């Protein structure tokens, strides 16, 4: 159906659950915002200037060994479904997908490194790894930054650091985030207070696909809210500490769900959700996410769930609307998607 979606592997390495805390942390991402010296930021640049920046960035990516056998895609040539597919994989943002300007994305063969061009900034470099691994994710993207920085002159000031279109990103240009699964804290009603308390630590919480997106399946994206005045290692270390504390709290909340008074109710919820996923004939993405969240927690608690975290993670990615359509090889209406989703899950959980 699509040359682009077919060129990506069905399974992605960063969903393999082979990192630290696979039962709670889905993935860690680090992105660096960079702009080219002497060029207007994308919002204010002419169409010709944007095309020149796009072509220079893609050329630099092609020259990098880090993008060997990678994907190089201009957004103007992508269909809406292909853009949604790349958004679901976290390779591009919704913002880049919706902009009409000359954008592009380069993704490496392992899909753990990408370069978005002409989104809010000229360049957005990103690495994504499995589990909790802020240092590893930063080192990966930092290598790309060093390599690109040798051929592209970045906009940089000794005082303010890397200069960005929005002042909230100036300095290191770094956003480090973890996709965290917090079903027990959510059920305990602890999330509002927890999210408020992390804001005092310079952290912010978003939905699964970034700013302004839904909280689906008790997944929260936790990231640094500020990025100027400290080193990259300090920002990564701060997030590490916050996430480590969240893991501690989530484990405590899960233990309370398994204590004598609540254990039966917890087991009942988990196995009802498991039964629903194994038997449903039609499943919306929201209903799927609500139930896979409980099943994921059940697997973490040691209940007999016929799928490991890697399988659960891959299913979570593959059941997204554009991925379902890519798999089917054609556009699917909402009802058809719900039916295809239920079919796939029955086949893979039974």
């Amino acid at each position, binding site marked *: 159906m699509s040359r682009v979606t077919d060129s990506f592997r069905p399974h992605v390495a960063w969903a393999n659950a082979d990192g630290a805390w696979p039962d709670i942390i889905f993935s860690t991402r680090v992105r660096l915002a960079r702009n080219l010296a002497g060029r207007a930021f994308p919002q204010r640049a002419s169409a010709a200037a944007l095309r020149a920046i796009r072509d220079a960035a893609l050329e630099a990516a092609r020259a990098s060994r880090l993008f060997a056998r990678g994907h190089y895609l201009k957004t103007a040539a992508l269909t809406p479904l292909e853009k949604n597919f790349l958004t679901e994989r976290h390779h591009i943002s919704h913002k880049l997908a919706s902009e009409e300007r000359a954008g592009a994305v380069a993704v490496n063969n392992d899909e753990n490194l990408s370069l978005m061009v002409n989104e809010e900034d000229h360049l957005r470099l990103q690495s994504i790894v499995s589990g909790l691994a802020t240092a590893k994710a930063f080192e990966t993207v930092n290598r790309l930054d060093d390599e690109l920085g040798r051929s592209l002159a970045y906009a940089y000031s000794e005082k303010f650091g890397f*200069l960005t279109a929005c*002042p909230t990103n100036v300095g290191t240009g770094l956003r480090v985030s973890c996709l965290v699964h917090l079903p027990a804290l959510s059920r305990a009603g602890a999330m509002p207070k927890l999210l408020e308390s992390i804001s005092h630590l310079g952290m912010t919480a978003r939905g699964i696909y970034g700013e302004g997106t839904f909280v689906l399946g008790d997944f929260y994206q936790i990231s640094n809210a500020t990025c100027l005045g400290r080193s990259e290692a300090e920002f990564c270390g701060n997030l590490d500490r916050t996430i480590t504390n969240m893991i501690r709290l989530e484990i405590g909340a899960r233990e309370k769900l398994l204590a*004598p008074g609540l254990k039966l109710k917890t087991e009942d919820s988990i196995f009802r959700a498991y039964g629903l996923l194994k038997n449903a004939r039609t499943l919306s993405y929201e209903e799927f996410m609500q139930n896979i969240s409980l099943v994921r927690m059940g697997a973490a608690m040691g209940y007999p769930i016929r799928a490991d975290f890697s399988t659960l993670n891959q299913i979570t990615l593959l059941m997204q609307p554009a991925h379902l359509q890519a798999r089917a090889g054609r556009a699917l209406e909402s009802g058809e998607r719900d039916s295809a989703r239920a079919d796939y899950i029955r086949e893979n959980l039974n």
Partner: protein
Amino acid sequence: MLCQSCKKNEAAVFLKVAVNNKVTEMHLCEACAAGVTAFGGLEAGPMNISGMMGNMSGYFKEFLPHEKRALHCRSCGLTYHEFKESGFLGCPECYADFEHPLTELLTRIHGNCLHAGKRPALCPGRPKCGTSPVPVVFGLAGQKTIYNTEALKEALKKAVENEDFEAAAGLRDRIRNLEGK
């Protein structure tokens, strides 16, 4: 209940969104919810999340120093007033031409106005950009967490034998949680 976006139709869909560290619950009609994709499409739909939650320009307006209408970037022509409206600068040179008000703004946003991170590869004298991984200090790090009292008691015994009292205290708390004490 009426849809919170169009305020005309009956709400049929319930959504949760995380914005500004708060989980917001919204009741929408099917038409408004249809315009909201699961992929961050809140701005694209008939409902505008900025309008409901306060947008970036509002954020900057609140914190920016007093009007400096005459101030503009000599390179791209962006006025400081335009920056206040949009929250976006026009080009890298804006940072030099708006240095004073931006210094104050950045201090308010980041708690600091001086860069302390890496320098670009093309800048001479670039210091090595080091990372200092933070060790995970509790529990059974890195692997699947165990929710089995017997296994935790065994780990507690080993921790005490090794005189690792910090780990032992953590394990003791976990066993208490599981036993509902």
